């Protein structure tokens, strides 16, 4: 039997090629990842991002059949675009369908920055201006200010995966400011996990990414310590004192 320690139901935008790969890469023995695809376009327009909320319900019905221990809605912009209440609604809908706690990437982004007590952060995204503004507003409602935002400014979401980890490393280094207490790299299609640890070592401050933050909340929800020490401080925290010491997350943002 696979997934005897924990089964992750992973809902990804259909165009996404990065998140499943990275989730499998960090999955320890006994944890399995089961994907379903959220129908939608590849251009990340407001209409497309909004339509993902409804389309995610079908994907949730499909993944519910593996009886997942946690469900991850793996899209940053698709969960922050219409604000915290919308994100909460997505979580509630998906949990009702799957009978499992749901983590969204935007919720995980806010949660990991709040857990560190960070109020001023730099952000790197692949998004266009409108989406970037929505991201800033989303974080603002959690009392987090974006000091500097650097973007690859690409509308095509499929092409976000073509940005090399080296380019993400350079972009973070180039834009980060001394005032920022932490950096967040948004978008689950960006291959940022590969450079998160190096960036933290080279910059001397926390650098969190969309896939990593989603995984962090998912493992917390399952109460599983994946014992990952080369993908940044956030995932290493899961090994501090045993996963079961923390209160399992239930359907929170």
């Amino acid at each position, binding site marked *: *039997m*696979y*997934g005897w320690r924990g*089964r992750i139901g992973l809902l990804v935008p*259909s*165009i*996404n*090629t990065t998140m*499943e*790969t990275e989730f*499998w890469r960090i999955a320890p023995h006994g944890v*399995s*990842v*089961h*994907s*379903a*695809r959220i*129908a939608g376009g*590849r251009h990340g327009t407001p209409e497309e991002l909004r339509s993902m909320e409804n389309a995610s319900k079908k*994907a949730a*019905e*499909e*993944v519910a*059949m*593996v*009886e997942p221990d946690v469900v991850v809605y793996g899209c940053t912009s698709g969960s922050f675009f219409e604000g915290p209440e919308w994100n909460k609604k997505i979580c509630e809908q998906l949990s009702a369908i799957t009978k499992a706690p749901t983590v969204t990437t935007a919720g995980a982004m806010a949660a990991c920055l709040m857990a560190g007590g960070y109020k001023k952060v730099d952000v790197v995204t692949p998004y266009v201006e409108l989406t970037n503004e929505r991201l800033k507003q989303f974080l603002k409602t959690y009392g987090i200010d974006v000091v500097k935002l650097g973007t690859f400014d690409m509308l095509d979401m*499929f092409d976000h995966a073509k940005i090399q980890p080296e380019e993400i490393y350079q972009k973070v280094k180039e834009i980060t400011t001394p005032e920022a207490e932490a950096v967040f790299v948004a978008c689950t299609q960006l291959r940022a996990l590969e450079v998160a640890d190096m960036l933290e070592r080279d910059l001397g401050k926390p650098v969190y990414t969309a896939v990593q933050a989603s995984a962090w909340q998912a493992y917390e929800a399952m109460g599983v310590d994946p014992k990952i020490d080369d993908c940044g401080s956030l995932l290493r925290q899961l090994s501090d004192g045993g996963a079961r010491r923390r209160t399992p997350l239930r359907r929170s943002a």
Partner: protein
Amino acid sequence: MTPELQKTGRIGLLVPSSNTTVEAEFYRALPRGVTVHAARLFLTRIAPESILKMVEDMETQAKLLATADVDVIVLGATAPSFLKGLGYDRELIAKIEAATGRSATTTSTALVQAIQHLGARRVALGSAYDEKVNAIAKAFLEASGIEVVDVKGLALVDNLVVGRLGPDSAYKLALGLEHSKADAIVLSCTNWQTLDAIERIERETGKPVISTSQASIWAALRMLDYRHGIEGYGKLLRELAPAGQTQTA
């Protein structure tokens, strides 16, 4: 390894929604650089009426995989791809290819190709299925020119129950097959954990073992023109490398 020197490819995998095994087995066996992207088709019971319904959703899900620009699409489900007998798998392939413009295969297609590739004419068939589905499986193989010398199944119809089995189940069932006249042993059902049992069964019986997940992985890698042997999961994957070429894991 620098990315340029690494063979890369994306496999789109159509998975029955209640399957908890096949994604894991693909990820375990595939080399770094080849990634799997899954989409799910509704299936709860391994029974004809459930399976026919599943196929209806297949084209929609295949199109979702195409948006991730996968190189090949595999219908990673055995019973659904042999259900209507010989040629049905080809019909499904044609549907997927027409809907997506990608090369496609099915588990049943891969299974027959793998058996033929190993030069086996007679097989012993072990499965997770009940008698009804086993009879269809046997008829499909025989219509494909492969003699089935023995059939045994676990008589399971609830797919989630199949996914909860450990590799010992496949091992025990395989050793209980009458395989003395068989050229190879076939283990059928992509939700049945078989990868860990293959080499043990091969060692103890002296016969090559083809499991439906392993054959699907093998077929997908061949479609990607990946030709390096993969160790640990039986003769079929080990001999992916062309004869005479040094194998690398």
